[in-house]
């Protein structure tokens, strides 16, 4: 609330009025103009690719089950032929490291490629904006519709848009949950309205989040919620390709006739049409330079190129370029040469190294895990023949998706032998605790603990073999 105007102060000094500024302001809605061009095509290709994988992969069958399924209840993650048990969480950590390094690498090379082309927020916003354009028209039509008073036509357009949005959002929520509950079972439950409470909750929650984020929040996520925007500062360097306005070429900007010789008139290439601002989904003016809101979607590049074409000027007034390239007027060759610099080489080397190591590790993975738990209370027992007996429980995990038979042997003391069944039969993908009695001569080792090893080998699959150490107690 503004205070009254300047009061005359007795000492004669001027008093500046105090104003109250709100610390929170409603964000202006952005009506992004639609754009077409090379980069727009790349973006839509990524939309198709990512969504084909997301919406499609959960329907693929494999080995009698869903190919990609994260079965939280049974604690098994299936990705085609790979089955991950909780003990394999290490691979998840490795996957996250690989994702992070890949992100660092291509961000160092070409800026916010993830944000502009692959991020789900961008992808779903693109889809929802396309639906919005279908129902409400282009930028100016949408602005007019929002400003118009309520009417039947307006209601119909808005309702239609929201109906399609709701369907897409629900399908998205349903697909997401379909990666955790087999999607075909889920579909049947959904259609007969017999969803479990948690499944129903997550479907509607995820649908609501999709509808809210892609329909309304849009750039608010990028501007205020996403941490990626904030730490791009440390991922860029002066050789990173970013969406750049060539101020040297474009300034001074101004309107001019197509036929005029603008250079002679002292004008730059920028005709100040403002289309680059109209197409921007985050509502910035790229001509002011790179800003943190810029998600690198290159809509302004496509828009400006079209205008340049119309004016018969060369393309690229707004283009992918680097800080160094702009300052030192490098051509393409120079820019590409600087692509291979210590930062990208180190990231690339680390990334390839970890990918190779992870792939090798996965290929070598043994579909068998054994844990040895000795019977603590039993210690050592004397049995017939004067032999000393220790009791163990072997927790055998058959990771293979087929029943297997395993042979048990024990080594470490001379004459040590297993006094129970030496062959264990295991069903597919199962865990079983097998009680094993091990006997040895009382004088085959020293008093107290003696290290021994259990060897579990799959019959008919010689390469599947685990050796676990244990200790044998002699009194």
């Amino acid at each position, binding site marked *: 609330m503004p205070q009254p105007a300047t009061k005359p102060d007795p000492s004669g000094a001027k008093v500046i009025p*105090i*104003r109250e*500024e709100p*610390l*929170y302001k409603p964000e202006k809605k952005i009506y992004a103009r639609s754009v077409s061009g090379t980069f727009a095509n790349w973006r839509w290709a990524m939309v198709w690719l990512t969504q084909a994988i997301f919406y499609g992969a959960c329907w693929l069958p494999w080995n009698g089950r869903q190919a990609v399924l994260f079965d939280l209840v049974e604690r098994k993650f299936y990705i085609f032929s790979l089955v991950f048990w909780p003990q394999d969480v290490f691979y998840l950590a490795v996957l996250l490291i690989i994702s992070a390094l890949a992100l660092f690498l291509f961000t160092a090379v070409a800026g916010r490629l993830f944000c502009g082309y692959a991020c789900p927020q961008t992808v779903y916003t693109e889809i929802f904006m396309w639906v919005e354009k279908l129902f409400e028209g282009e930028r100016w039509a949408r602005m007019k519709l929002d400003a118009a008073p309520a009417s039947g036509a307006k209601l119909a357009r808005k309702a239609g848009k929201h109906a399609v949005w709701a369907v897409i959002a629900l399908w998205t929520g349903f697909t997401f949950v379909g990666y955790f509950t087999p999607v075909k079972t889920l579909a049947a439950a959904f259609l007969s309205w017999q969803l479990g409470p948690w499944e129903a909750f997550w479907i509607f929650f995820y649908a609501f989040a999709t509808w809210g984020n892609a329909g309304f929040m849009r750039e608010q996520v990028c501007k205020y919620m996403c941490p990626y925007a904030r730490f791009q500062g440390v991922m860029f360097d002066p050789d990173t390709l970013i969406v750049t306005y060539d101020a040297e070429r474009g300034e001074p900007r101004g309107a001019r006739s197509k036929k005029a010789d603008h250079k002679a008139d002292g004008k730059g290439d920028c005709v100040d049409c403002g289309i680059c601002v109209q197409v921007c989904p985050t509502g910035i003016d790229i001509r002011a330079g790179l800003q943190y809101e810029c998600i690198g979607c290159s809509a302004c590049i496509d828009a400006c190129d079209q205008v340049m074409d119309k004016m018969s000027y060369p393309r690229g007034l707004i283009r992918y370029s680097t800080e160094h390239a702009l300052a030192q007027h490098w051509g393409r060759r120079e820019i590409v040469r600087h692509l291979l610099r210590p930062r990208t080489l180190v990231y690339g080397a680390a990334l390839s190294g970890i990918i190779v190591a992870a792939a090798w590790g996965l290929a070598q993975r043994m579909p068998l895990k054994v844990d040895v738990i000795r*019977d603590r209370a039993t210690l050592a*027992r004397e049995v017939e023949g004067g032999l000393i007996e220790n009791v163990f429980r072997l927790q055998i995990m058959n990771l293979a998706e087929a029943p297997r038979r395993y042979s048990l042997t024990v080594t470490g003391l001379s004459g040590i032998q297993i006094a129970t069944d030496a062959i264990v039969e295991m069903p597919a993908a199962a865990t079983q605790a097998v009680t094993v009695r091990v006997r040895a001569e009382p004088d085959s080792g020293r008093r107290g603990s003696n290290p021994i090893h259990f060897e579990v080998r799959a019959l008919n699959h010689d390469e599947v073999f685990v050796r676990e150490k244990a200790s044998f107690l002699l009194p």
Partner: protein
Amino acid sequence: MSDYVSGFWSVYVALITLVSIVGCAVLLWSQGKARTNSAGQSDTTGHVWDDDLQEYNHPLPRWWSWLFYITVFFGVGYLAVYPGLGSYEGSFKWSSRGEYEAEMKQADARYAPIFAKFQGQDLKAVTADPEARKMGERLFQTYCAQCHGSDARGARGFPNLADGDWLWGGEPEQIKTSILEGRQGVMPPHAHLGADAVKDLAHFVRSLSPDKLAHDAVRSARGKEGFAAVGCAGCHGADARGMQALGAPDLTDSIWLHGASEATIIETITKGRSNRMPAHKEFLGEAKSHLLAAYVLGLSPGAAKKQ
């Protein structure tokens, strides 16, 4: 629900919590505006330091402040329905004990029919059922294996359940009673007999074993007289074959619960033994004990040894 030593603390906690929540809301509302003295410009806060240092005022989006207010309302609502304000239970009356009881009720509803099926059956019939044996094995591994071993063959001081020898009787009902009511095996101490007499008795007992344990024949003969005279026969029987009603072991077999060495037998006679099988009636209940009794029965070869 929190238990406080006095009602004062409950009020203390609740009051501080509520005042803090209201305080947060007041803070949000009062700090929603910035007082600036910028004459005309709205981009900066108007303060100028060191000639040209200024501070931008870029307002946060309004939905941000809505989120803050939503958390305040959520907090109040949450504390109305869940416990958090001192000893107030919350209108949902949620408690972790209540959660546990609800889960136990669910489990009982799920498992009771399975147990009931076997409850009505005779123990011998249950032993013959493979599903019941598997259930019994899992129960055994959970509740009994710590003392009796994963293979049920016991350890020093913990009986071997798979050898067909029973201290307290091997009839199905007797095994079940051992589990439900527990057993207390007491060998009274005999130090008052004197070390020499005790040693004689020990050699006599060793001579009874079918494993031909080494013993001194002279001492053994003296021990035999002592056995009848001192009163060992009162519990272990005149023929030393034990008495299942008292849990007195058969001294003429190869099974030695505490060990067969001379020193161990002397210790047993001198100091006595007190061996306890805990009662599992309260802890496990009738149904699980029924399955366990059947499982244990099935571990032994052949018929139970009769008294």
